[in-house]
């Protein structure tokens, strides 16, 4: 399935694009992240990066379905 991936802040800067589309064979967020690592090898996805499926924070074990948008959330700085 194809999954849209949004990048924000420093991650968008690292990847050079704010959005990617990856083709994923598995069905979890972890599978999407593996595909992102291949598609954008310059991205540094360390432990500080959180993830969202659509508009909710999600763990790598979360299910991802066709049509979902995955977001990579680097450390936030609002306020």
């Amino acid at each position, binding site marked *: 399935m194809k999954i849209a991936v*949004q990048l*924000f*802040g*420093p991650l968008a*800067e690292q990847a050079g694009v704010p959005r990617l589309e990856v083709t994923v064979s598995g069905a979890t967020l972890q599978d999407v992240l593996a595909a992102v690592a291949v598609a954008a090898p310059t991205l540094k996805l360390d432990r500080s990066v959180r993830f*969202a499926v659509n*508009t*909710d*924070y999600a763990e790598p074990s979360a299910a991802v379905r066709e049509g979902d948008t995955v*977001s990579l*959330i*680097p*450390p*936030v*700085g*609002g*306020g």
Partner: protein
Amino acid sequence: MFKVTTEPLSIDEAYAAVRRDDCGAVAFFVGTVRDHHDGKKVTRISYSAFQEMAVKEFAAIAAEAAARWKIGAVYIAHRTGALAIGDASVVIAVSAPHRAEAFEGCRHAIEALKKLAPIWKEEFYETGKAWISG
């Protein structure tokens, strides 16, 4: 009551949104752009956000505050785009029957926003720039 906007923020709007006849207190938090960071002169700041999720997080933060304290209403607005020194970046207002709950709810809202809201700050200095978190 919850928004992410490129427009200047309004404390009057926040006050009007939360003031209620059954509440005797309104507490505010206003975050403003500071002119220095770690000894460096800040010239301007740019905020970006995952707008749809940020607004949803604001609503969840307000719901948690309402579950923990007896409060009336919560207003949370964050500005994005290019901000100048002194501009308000965030405005939070919380009304409550009594001041203690208004202060507690307001404090909770800004602390939770800083941890959870998908918003990013890029600081520009006289030379260079940096992404600032926390």
